[in-house]
């Protein structure tokens, strides 16, 4: 349980962007895993099976609460507004951010891109999964995953350029 706790929690919190909901969903995930453990097929990797359950729980929650989980459109991210309450903003803009600040800044943008891109970035980089594993979890073709991750990175790069960050 400890092995998956942090990764699952971080995936969920970045998808729903609400700590309380993330805690509830993480709990629901582990309880579900325990209740359906007897249905686990040993042909599949346990982690893939578990992440699939987690992914479905989160997607169901987002679908049911579409109004609350208001994602920003790809082109409407106002990063400076978005980060105004965080400690990464500077009087001199974003040009002189340290590496650590840049990291926080980029991951803040990730939290605000559309869920269809965000989920893939999170599965790829937080869960450290391969494209094929992501395809099994999300039931999307590998080609679509590649394209969406590419698009997500394009968005991130554009945002960095927009804010004058060296890319």
């Amino acid at each position, binding site marked *: 349980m*400890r092995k998956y706790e942090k990764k699952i*929690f971080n995936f969920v919190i970045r998808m729903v962007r609400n700590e309380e909901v993330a805690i509830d969903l993480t709990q629901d995930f582990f309880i579900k895993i325990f209740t359906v453990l007897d249905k686990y097929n040993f042909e599949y990797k346990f982690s893939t099976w578990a992440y699939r359950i987690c992914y479905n729980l989160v997607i169901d929650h987002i679908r049911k609460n579409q109004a609350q989980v208001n994602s920003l459109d790809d082109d409407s991210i106002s990063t400076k507004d978005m980060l105004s309450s965080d400690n990464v903003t500077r009087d001199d803009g974003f040009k002189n951010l340290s590496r650590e600040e840049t990291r926080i800044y980029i991951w803040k943008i990730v939290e605000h891109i559309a869920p269809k891109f965000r989920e893939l970035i999170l599965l790829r*980089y937080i869960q450290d999964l391969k494209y094929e594993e992501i395809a099994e979890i999300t039931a999307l073709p590998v080609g679509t995953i590649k*394209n969406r991750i*590419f698009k997500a990175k394009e968005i*991130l790069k554009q945002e960095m350029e927009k804010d004058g960050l060296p890319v």
Partner: protein
Amino acid sequence: MACLSDDKILTYLDGEIKSIEQAIIRDHLLICPDCRRTTDSYAELHKILAQPVTSEPPAWLIPQIMKRIYPEIPKYTSIAALIAASFIFFVTWIYIYFDFSKNSLIKALQLTADSTSGWLVNIIKAISTIYNSVQAAFKACNAFLNMLLNIRLGGTMIIAFALAFSGLVLSILIRLLLKKPGAEK
């Protein structure tokens, strides 16, 4: 080789390209400054993404999940289970140690029953039945105890085990005390 598409560069950085193709891309990057510049620009982003900023889940999360998975057993149930478990363990150990099934008295009674008739047979049969029932009860108790232990009694299990162990030690002491001096000769 034609210049690399951005898509290709990103897939390359993600390590999702076969080793032969990776070598071709690496060779191309050595000779093409444009592609190298694009790759470098994505490499920084890739490095940042590969080191996600993570949040720590609350420390009470796992204990709370465990509570939901294994709801707490009411106190009186635990106490009753503790007493029952201790008793069963204690008696079971004595039972195992003295091995009643090999008790010569029971054997003698069974042998007598085989070669006797009339009222004596009925008495012996009654004794045998009681003995068998006790044995069955022991087995049932053991099964019940196993079931209790499977419901995660935690502390209860440890205490019951300690009591069982002390039961074993006690039974050895009793045996030693009852041993006649010079019996080994």
